[in-house]
């Protein structure tokens, strides 16, 4: 249900306020009578999608080079249809998204689950709202690395300590019993340089996010050690989740739900029309490589947001990150502090495919 005031406070909405609210959204007299007649059933007073119910018509979303977050780009038109008249895409590197979200510089956005948990653990005001898709990261190894355990003592290229590549690879290392801090030689390099060193056999492994895996496969650089879209256990958990600034969620519950609805609808479109989405990503300049975008849209399971439980993802990665010494609190605390599945649970019932 829309989380307007009437819904949150059933039975406390006076008839005068109800009539004012309904008239304010242009409900016809007959329609008003129809809805009013249903009041005894505790129905919400405002029509679905009424613009007046939106607490804000502005929504700010991050944009970066990653195209696995395609649903939030595809969502642009859907967000406008939800009543947002000012949809702002704010350019920033992926590593800065959680910080910007915590600071209230962006309202809502897709981010990798691991970095989200680290920020939630640190007390940042971020709320995970839903899992969006599974498995976009892929570990590529040199000839010396055939399994995660082979990373022991090897050089591994990442963009940034604490960035998504570092967090996911540290989780994977911890899962197989390695100490990611002591057993792996982390090299912080720009992505292009990391891929080049892998091609030259000068590093042991490189963890790529789209479109890196598609590029590496096309150029036959290294080999896939773990593909999180298909290899268990990684393929059983969300990679990217939709999160929001906590204050935004608290102050704008209707906008939050509509933003989430637009992104989840867009995820369904990514799953059902990969070619159309790849074309949109190319046309709008999110990528210059249509073929890689199409490959990605076909490979990634964008249709799992109803099926998988995002809380399982939080529990799984929180335990791994705890083992790796990257978070201090247990999964229950992370879930309590930094998740809100209410909107997702409603949408699972309301939106069918």
């Amino acid at each position: 249900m829309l989380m307007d005031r009437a819904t949150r406070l059933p039975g406390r909405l006076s008839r005068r306020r109800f009539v004012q609210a309904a008239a304010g959204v242009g409900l016809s007299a007959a329609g008003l009578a129809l809805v009013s007649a249903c009041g005894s059933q505790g129905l919400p007073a405002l029509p679905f999608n009424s613009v007046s119910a939106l607490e804000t018509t502005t929504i700010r979303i991050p944009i970066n080079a990653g195209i696995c977050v395609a649903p939030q780009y595809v969502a642009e038109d859907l967000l406008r249809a939800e009543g947002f008249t000012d949809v702002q895409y704010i350019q920033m590197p992926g590593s800065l998204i959680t910080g910007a979200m915590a600071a209230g510089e962006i309202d809502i956005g897709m981010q990798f689950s691991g970095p989200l948990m680290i920020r939630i653990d640190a007390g940042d005001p971020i709320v995970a709202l839903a899992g969006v898709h599974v498995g976009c990261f892929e570990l590529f190894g040199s000839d010396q690395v055939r399994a995660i355990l082979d990373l022991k003592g090897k050089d591994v290229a990442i963009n940034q300590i604490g960035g998504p590549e570092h967090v996911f690879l540290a989780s994977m290392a911890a899962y197989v019993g390695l100490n990611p801090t002591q057993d792996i030689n982390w090299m912080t390099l720009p992505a292009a340089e990391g891929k080049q060193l892998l091609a030259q056999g000068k590093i042991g492994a490189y963890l790529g996010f789209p479109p890196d895996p598609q590029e590496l496969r096309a150029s036959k650089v290294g080999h896939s050690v773990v593909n999180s879209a298909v290899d268990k256990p990684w393929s059983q958990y969300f990679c990217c989740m939709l999160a929001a600034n906590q204050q935004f969620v608290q102050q704008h519950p209707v906008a939050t739900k509509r933003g989430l609805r637009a992104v989840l609808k867009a995820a369904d479109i990514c799953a059902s029309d990969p070619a159309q989405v790849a074309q949109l990503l190319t046309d709008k300049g999110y990528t210059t490589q249509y073929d890689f975008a199409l490959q990605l849209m076909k490979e990634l399971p964008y249709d799992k947001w109803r099926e998988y439980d995002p809380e399982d993802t939080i529990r799984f990665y929180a335990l791994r990150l705890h083992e790796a010494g990257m978070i201090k609190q247990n999964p229950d605390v992370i879930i309590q502090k930094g998740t809100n599945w209410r909107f997702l649970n409603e949408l699972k019932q309301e939106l069918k495919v």
Partner: protein
Amino acid sequence: MVAYLTRSWTTLLPLALVGVLTVVLAQGFALPPGLLASIVPGQPSGLPRIGAAPALALTTQDGDRLALSELGGKVVLVTFIYTSCTDTCPLLTGKLAGVRDNLGADFGSRVHFLSVTTDPERDTPDVLREYGGRFKADPAGWAFLTGTPAEVAEVTGAYGIFVRRTPRGDVDHSFLTSLIDRHGTLRVQYLGTRFNPDELLADVRALVRER
């Protein structure tokens, strides 16, 4: 011993029957939401109540004005198409025609379909009548609606449909089919065209039977 067993069975048989009945009923109530309600009159459908369905008043394929409020007491299905669409819209309309065929006597009397054009400039009532005819749409239960561009834009916006005309003259729009109960409350939406028509049929029937 035999007498003891006989007495025990006479005592236990009713209890066993009650037990079996309890299990059967429990299993019955564990059926997916909508399925039981589609069979048993008055049973709650279990479908969510999203909000009051947005009002709409447009022109039918017969040139008459029709408002959603006039369909009070009926379950209403609202969808969005345009007639010159050659791929997805006919699939969706065809899928709804299949649901109509399975609704039997409920179609028209208890269930009404509304297909709203997203291309009002080209989809006049005459064009819509011809389009509906291709799907054997009976106007008594299935209205194809058009209006001024402003009227249609208001309705598409209210139902969360994005519409954009492409340079080629096609109309890009999102596919969202909305199911509204007899009291005018939006209950569930089906995204795209690949939803299971049997599930939609079960949901429609559940809302027909719901008090």
